């Protein structure tokens, strides 16, 4: 349970850190895009590592994180008008 909480704290830090840099980079589109992609990659890697540690990593799980990450990037591009 403690490990589980720690994992979520790490995820929270990844997303919040990415969000902060994204917000700070207002007006610098390239930096915002890079930040968004790195944050999404962080989220996908977190998912893979988390499930690997939990012992329930499956190809379906990896595809799920990748698809949700892709949706997040497309949403980001929609906002930035890419």
């Amino acid at each position, binding site marked *: 349970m403690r490990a589980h909480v720690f994992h*979520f704290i790490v*995820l*929270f830090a990844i*997303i*919040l850190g990415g*969000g902060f840099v*994204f*917000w700070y980079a*207002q*007006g*610098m*589109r390239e930096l*915002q895009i890079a930040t968004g992609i790195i944050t999404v990659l962080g*989220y996908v890697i*977190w*998912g893979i590592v*988390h*499930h690997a540690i939990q012992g*329930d990593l*499956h190809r*379906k*799980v990896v*595809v*799920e*994180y990748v*698809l*949700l990450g*892709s*949706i*997040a990037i*497309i*949403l*980001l*591009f*929609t*906002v*930035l*008008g*890419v």
Partner: protein
Amino acid sequence: MRGVEFSLPGMGDFLRHLFTPHHTNNHRARALHLDALLFYALALVFFNLFLGWFQKARPDVLGYATDIHLEQLLIATNAKRQEAGLSILGLNASLSQAAAKKAEDMFAKDYWAHTSPSGATPWEFVTAAGYQYAVAGENLAKNFSTSQAVIDAWIASPSHRDNLLKSNYKDIGFAIVNGVLNGEETTLVVQMFGSQSGQTLAAGGPVAVKPVEAAGLPNVVSTPEAPARKESSPTRESLPQAQEPSVVISDSALTAVSSNEKQAPYNVLTQKFMESINRPVVDITSLKKGALGAMIVFFCALFILDAWIVTRRRITRVAGHSLAHTMFFGILFFILIRSLGGSIL
């Protein structure tokens, strides 16, 4: 009755199958299956492509709605100053000209900053426009849809608010310009403040103050005690007296400056720099906000419902972590919706 069991499921069963973990969908809402996620991703791509194509084809139907006027900005700024017990500012031709040239320079060199990539500070535009400042300041805004939204954003930011409500200023200038910045269609608002050498300051007398730009601040008027950064603190001696801006505004852009600015303050700029009015049938920002908001709320609601049911029924399955997905899309929602608004500098 046996035939009922093999008939099409009712609406309740269908919705349960679609939105909740159930044995009919392998304990994962059908709307969250991998093929459904792929469908959302592709649908979003087509939505983006359609928006881009339609906006270009019919900008009168789908575009960025703006309604920003110089006069409204001036009135709103002075109203805020009066509320704070300060004197109102007079519209100054030279400051408006400096603001217009600064905006043109930002579009020409494609930057969103107080200092240009070539190192030109706001103060250089001010002096180039013929305004011999004792104190000067600059606020920037982009992608707001109304004049009031611009002023509200500046007032909500402590550093911009300080600038807007500085008692040392006597004059103000504005430019509202449309263009493409960082590949994005943008409405830029430049607000320049100043007080000329010899003008009586509210504090009770002329103050020898030199403007400097400090890191992270939209502009700072340094007090004698404030440390000035070497690379961006023009001294009175080093001020360029007749430096031309790197981008010259066409003759049609600026009309002749009136000899008596107070009598004809609005004759300073042409319509190009005085307002931005665009009223498409559908505002693209609102459309994006609505679509993105609906999609993310839809995801979060499904993931929360999924996590709740799976925990309650103690279902063991192979799937991603719904709480992690909720956290991810929840934070994404706030970041993206916030990014769709205007920004200030």
